[in-house]
């Protein structure tokens, strides 16, 4: 039986820690705080920033289109409604990502040490 996909990288990633002969103390801070620790956090934060920015851009676009229709500058009613729906869907995607993030944080906080 194949292992579950998400478990596999955990197992392979844990293998350097289980090595008894490796110098444990200098290696762990280098792994957690050095090159692998800081860069991905910044990368994910940047990506999240981009997500929020693009959701905001979609909302602004929908707002502009709706205003144009309401002011009588455009008669493309469907474009305004579709833009609103797109903005709604992307907003709920953002909320979903945020929920997952909070959930995983709380899961980590609940962890027994």
């Amino acid at each position, binding site marked *: 039986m194949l292992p579950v996909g998400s478990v596999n990288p955990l197992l392979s990633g844990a293998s350097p820690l289980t090595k008894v002969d490796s110098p444990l103390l200098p290696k762990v801070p280098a792994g957690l705080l050095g090159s692998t620790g800081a860069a991905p956090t910044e990368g994910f934060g940047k990506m999240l920033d981009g997500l929020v920015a693009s959701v905001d851009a979609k909302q602004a676009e929908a707002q502009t289109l709706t205003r144009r229709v309401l002011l009588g500058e455009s008669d493309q009613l*469907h474009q305004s409604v579709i833009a609103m729906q797109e903005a709604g*869907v*992307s907003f709920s995607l953002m909320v979903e990502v945020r929920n997952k993030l909070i959930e995983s944080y709380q899961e980590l906080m609940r962890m027994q040490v």
Partner: protein
Amino acid sequence: MNLISGIEISASALAAQKTRLDIVAQNIANAQTTRTAKGGPYQRQVVSFETELIRNQGMAGGGLQSIRVAQVTTDRSPGQQVYNPQHPDASADGLVTMPNVNLSQEMVDLITASRTYEANLSVVKNARQMAARTLEIGK
């Protein structure tokens, strides 16, 4: 970020059918117009569509085709001659050339445009529902 795929195609179809509806409205409104800026009675307008390739479609459909109004042409068929000597646009023998608009044909066109619009609206609705349902996986 393009979460609802294919919605640009439906949007273009909605715009095209809306143009068609406008032209039908113009034809029906001018069904009795015997004088235009170009001279002579009003002539029926016909809309034709053409496909348009969507360019910046990154992921799935590289060659998706949307729709746009190709041109609005004039129906050159002759209008009906009606004997009405009192009419200001009557010729010397009392005949008035009416527009070549056939109301029943315009009504059929109207219903077709309206139904096509509705069909595209349900595509939009379904695409949105698909995206929303997909987001419900996480719940």
